[in-house]
Each structure stands twice: as C-alpha cells, then as structure tokens.
C-alpha cells in the first residue's frame, strides 16, 4: 500500500458533515410533502436552530419531526411560530 493510498483523503466522509446534512434537510423541506421554503435552518455550535413562521401548529410539528429524523445525534432547537390569523387593529394611511 502506498503512503498516498494509506492516507485518508481530506474529503473522505465529508458527506456526513453537518452543513451538507442541513442543506439536504432544506431541500427535503422544500421539495418534499411539506413544501416549506420559509424556515431558516442555522447551525449553532453543535446544534441546529429552526426559525420562521409557518401556516399552522401542525406544520411546525411536522417540520420539527422531519428535522430530528434527518439529523439524528444533533440537537435540534425549534423557534418556529404559527402565523397569526387575527384581524388587523389598524390601517396604514398610504396617501
């Protein structure tokens, strides 16, 4: 075995890097059943933080479930909120 072959290539195993896994999670959130492009996924230390506003509590729970399933071993913190459907209490005078 040559010395070259014995060395581990710099990128070997890189597909498991957290940044790639987060990128794939973003892809799956958008293109999968959830169709969600409005959630920001940030790497915070060894954890991942989800933020954003989604249409419903169920949607938030589905996103969190998918994130935890795709990122086993990585703590996933969730600060996603459900959209407020209240009637506005004022109008803007545009002109």
């Amino acid at each position, binding site marked *: 075995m040559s010395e070259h072959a014995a060395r581990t290539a710099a990128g070997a195993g890189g597909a498991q890097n957290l940044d790639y896994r987060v990128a794939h999670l973003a892809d799956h959130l958008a293109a999968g059943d*959830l*169709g*969600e*492009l*409005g959630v*920001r996924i940030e790497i915070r230390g060894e954890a991942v933080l989800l933020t*954003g*506003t*989604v*249409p*419903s509590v*169920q*949607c938030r729970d589905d996103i969190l479930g998918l994130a935890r399933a795709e990122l086993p071993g990585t703590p996933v913190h969730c600060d996603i909120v459900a*959209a*407020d*459907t*209240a*009637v*506005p209490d*004022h*109008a*803007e*005078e*545009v*002109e």
Partner: protein
Amino acid sequence: MIRIAAVGDIHMGPESKGLLRPAFETLPDSADVLLLAGDLTRHGTPEEARVVAREIEGLAVPVVAVLGNHDHHADCPDEVTAVLQDAGVRVLEGQATVVGSGDARIGVAGTKGFGGGFVGRCAGEFGEPVMKEFVRYSRRCADTLRTALEELEGQDCDVRIALTHFSPVPDTLAGEPPEIYPFLGSYLLAEAIDAAGADLAVHGHAHLGTEHGMTSGGVKVRNVAQPVIGRAFHVYHLAGPERATAGAPVGRVGA
C-alpha cells in the same frame, strides 16, 4: 377613501381549513377589496385550492388574486385558477380588472412575476438555454404587468394597484439573505410599474422581508406576506375620489 386589504403566502392545506375565514368575514367593515398576493396553497394542488376557495367564497368584498410559485408546484396552475374562479376570485396573470366600491373604481393589474435580481446584481439573458429562458420568462411577466397597468389607465380608475407575488424592489426583502435576492424578485417588475404608473404595489414571497419599500419612480411597495404582516391581512387607505364614500356598500361589479 379607498380601502385595500391584502395578504399573501397563506400557504393553505387541509390542516389549515377555516383558519382565515373568521377574519375574512370582517372584511366589509374595513376594506373595499381583498388582494391575495400568491402562494395561497402549499403545493398547488386542486385539493389545497379548494381549501382556499372555502376561505373566501361568498365574501361581501371582491377578491383579486395572483398565483405564487407554490401554486405552480404541482404543475396544474390552470386547475388551481379554475377552482379559485369558481369561488368568485378574479385570478390575474398579465391581466387587469376593475372593482367597484361605491362610486370609486379600483384598478388592479397582476402577474405572478419571477426572479432575476436587482440592478447591478441581476441575471442576464446569456449562456445556457435554461438561463436565457429564466430571464426571458421574468421579462414576459413584467411586460404583461406593464401592459395591464397601461390598459387600466384608460378605464377611469381612481387608483391603480400592481399585484405580484415576486418583489419589484429589494427594499422589502431586507431580512432575507442577500444571496437569494435574485430568487425573490426582479427590477423588471419595478421598471414596468414605474413606466406605466401605479398608486401602490403589493407583493408577497419574502417571508423574512419587511413590509415597506418604494420603487425608484416613487411608487410605494408593500410586502404583505403573512409572516411579515403578522395578521390575517393588512389594510391600506388610499385617497379616493370625492364622490367615493367610506364604508359605502361594496358592489361586485367591474371588468
């Protein structure tokens, strides 16, 4: 005074059925028309469109909409449009409509629009066919918006509104990562709005953006994506004709 209610990016699906109906039923108290700025569904399926239809069907104010990118995801935007039209929604894509409110005439020109970016940081019509088509498609959307606004000019409208899903300006994208601005809007839309003239431009799409912006020609722009406005809808008051009476009964008339 003319009262414009608007919201975009409501992203409805079966699980969100009925969430917005209670707020929408109050619209006659506060608005003369409801504008929907696209991304009404999550995946653009007829089933999801029927959820949206039930939210707005039979409202006592006219409803005018454009579709968004989510409403195209299932590759059946015509079916989505048909479901909404059956519920009484005027769905615009490169078209204009006029709705009446008392004696006032509210003109709305709409297109989904597309991306491409903003001056100095935008895609060009160059290179691979898919890249050229990306820019050409955005240009076609902008051109139809301009034509629709110009069409309204001859229809004695008291106000003209440009309704899009993608943003015409970068101002209302503040809060989004700058790297993705070219996927959130195009200056071509703003150029069309400034060339044809409008009293207000309303869009959605940018959930992390901000509400207020302005074109270089001075047209006020409002990002009404629901995550941005934080309510079921927002209301904008525009100066109307002297003959228009605030709170007058709203008629479902117009083109």
